[in-house]
């Protein structure tokens, strides 16, 4: 029997267990953030080694809020999140409702639906590059066969269409996410009000609108919050498909920061951008959380 040898270990066992995590996250999460914060007030640049390093206060921030590239990136990012996420919610709701019924092969379908989410994002990007290709891509081929297009369109190459093409990819990749969350929420709903409504004479649509939907609101809100926060982080897909182009039409914040830091090597400025983005994300999520709490209280 392993009788407690050192009572000190026994006493502090729970803290001991969490110590490695604290150290680990301390360095990599909070330490990193501290470092970024610090660097944002410098003009550090890095070419194989630190080539300059001066503390320049809020100069980076002043530059950032006037930076057209950064502002465009912010705009694009929010357009993307603002369009993709609601669509993903609606589609997710629709598909979840369909999957919630008694259909054969439901389990297989559920397994199938997670594929887009777990596919390596770089590969997803490449898949859609193939699809969108203007010379042989499937989408152009189909649209032309059906007579909708007379000439192939280079979706990823035109500033008017590029962002929307990316939005479609995001929808493809992440609708399963909202679907699964909403589906789980649906399955957790009690059946009694549903049956009572049936007996009361309500049609399926009326039941959905007046019974199911109100009960689903908490789930929907959570799905929305999670997905919105994630959508802002988009990077891999854009990197491999358009790299921000053509022009700045698909420049999203992740990419801007990356380019500043590792292509233009302005680590200090990139840090400032990073902090700004984080700041915006935090404020946004708090606002959304406040709204959620208000709705939940009702």
């Amino acid at each position, binding site marked *: 029997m392993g009788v407690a040898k050192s009572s000190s270990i026994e006493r502090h066992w729970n803290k001991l267990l969490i110590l490695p995590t604290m150290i680990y996250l301390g360095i990599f999460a909070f330490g990193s953030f501290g470092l970024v914060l610090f660097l944002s007030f410098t003009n550090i640049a890095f070419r194989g080694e630190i080539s300059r390093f001066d503390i320049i206060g809020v100069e980076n921030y002043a530059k950032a809020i006037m930076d057209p590239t950064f502002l465009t990136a912010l705009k694009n990012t929010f357009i993307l999140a603002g369009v993709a996420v609601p669509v993903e919610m609606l589609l997710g709701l629709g598909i979840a409702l369909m999957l919630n019924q008694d259909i054969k092969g439901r389990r297989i379908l559920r397994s199938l639906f997670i594929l887009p989410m777990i596919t390596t994002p770089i590969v997803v990007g490449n898949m859609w590059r193939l699809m969108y290709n203007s010379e042989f891509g499937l989408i152009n081929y189909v649209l032309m066969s059906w007579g909708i297009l007379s000439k192939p369109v280079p979706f990823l190459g035109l500033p008017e269409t590029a962002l929307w093409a990316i939005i479609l990819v995001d929808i493809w990749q992440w609708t399963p996410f909202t679907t699964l969350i909403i589906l789980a929420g649906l399955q957790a709903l009690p059946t009694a009000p549903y049956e009572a409504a049936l007996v009361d004479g309500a049609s399926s649509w009326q039941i959905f609108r007046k019974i199911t939907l*109100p009960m689903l609101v908490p789930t929907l809100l959570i799905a929305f919050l999670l997905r919105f926060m994630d959508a802002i982080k988009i990077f891999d897909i854009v990197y491999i498909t358009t790299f921000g182009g053509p022009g700045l039409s698909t420049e999203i914040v992740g990419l801007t920061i990356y380019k500043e830091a590792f292509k233009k090597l302005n680590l200090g400025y990139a840090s400032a951008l990073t902090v700004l983005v984080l700041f915006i994300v935090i404020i946004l999520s708090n606002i959304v959380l406040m709204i959620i709490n208000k709705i939940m209280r009702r």
Partner: protein
Amino acid sequence: MVNVRIENATKRFGKTIAVNKLNLEVKDGEFVCILGPSGCGKTTTLRCVAGLDKFDEGHIYFNDEMVDHLSPQERNIGMVFQFYVVYRMTVRENLAFPLEIKNLPRDEINRRVKEIAEILRLSDLLDVNATKLGPAEKQRVALGRALIKEPKVLLLDEPLTNLDAKLRTEMRIELMRLHKRLRSTTIFVTHDQLEAMTLGDRIAVMNLGVLQQYDTPYNLYYHPKNLFVADFIGSPSMNFIECTLKRKNGEAFLDATDFKINLGDLSNVILRKASSEEVLMGIRPEHIVISKENVNDAFTGIIDFIENIGDKNIIHVKIGNQIIRVLVHGRTEFKLNETVYIKFLMNTFHVFDKKTGSVIV
């Protein structure tokens, strides 16, 4: 108002037969209870009548029209569930819900809501959120919602089971009053035999999917058709004594080892109907007389235990190896281990065939 008929209905869940060739008819305006222990098939039957489930075999008729293929919405029924289902709306909106579905004119809706609220004493609660009410009030709302559309059939699935004792009695009276007033064809499912006996015009007793007896409360009590019904109905439950049917001098009597019971006039009937000599005699505790003085033909026993239930006592009398329970009203002067004499009231006992369980007398 509607006559409901279930014909040869069977429902299986995997290998278990939940409902076995059920034949049941509920007459127009009748209040019928389906009574039985858990798993006897009563809730399944009710749900099939509602259209929430389907029988594998057999049919359901409303006024001789088959309704099997109709969805719950189309059957025009009202249903109250065990767990007081109310919507997350005000009481008024709950009550109005079925009418709004049908797009009735606003005045009509308001009128009916007001009427139902008055009948169910909900008028003061109309604008309260239904989920905030207590269980009995919620159940009243559910009841109101079921009745407001003046359904052909009213179905109740153990609606009082989850209420505490006092509320239960109140709601029982409420239901009885409602039924007298509205005269809707009602099917009430419960496992509480007292409830069924007080409420039902007729009671369908079920066990393991099979209908045991479908009769008035009086008949179920005084003329049970088999062991199960005899045992299930009546509180405290019936005493059962194993006996052997024997003959002596042209008359039959029951030999219960520790005592004998003469069958007298019934001898011929019993002898004819009994399939074997092993029988069970049943007698209700309230049909036994107990006294400290010895009287003719009384059986002698010793008091083994006294159960006190409020203003009544159940006295367990030990005769030989048998224990017979006797119901006594009022305060008891009996004490443990006292010797007492018990006698069965005339013509109140039943004889059951031990193997088949059916009644002989």
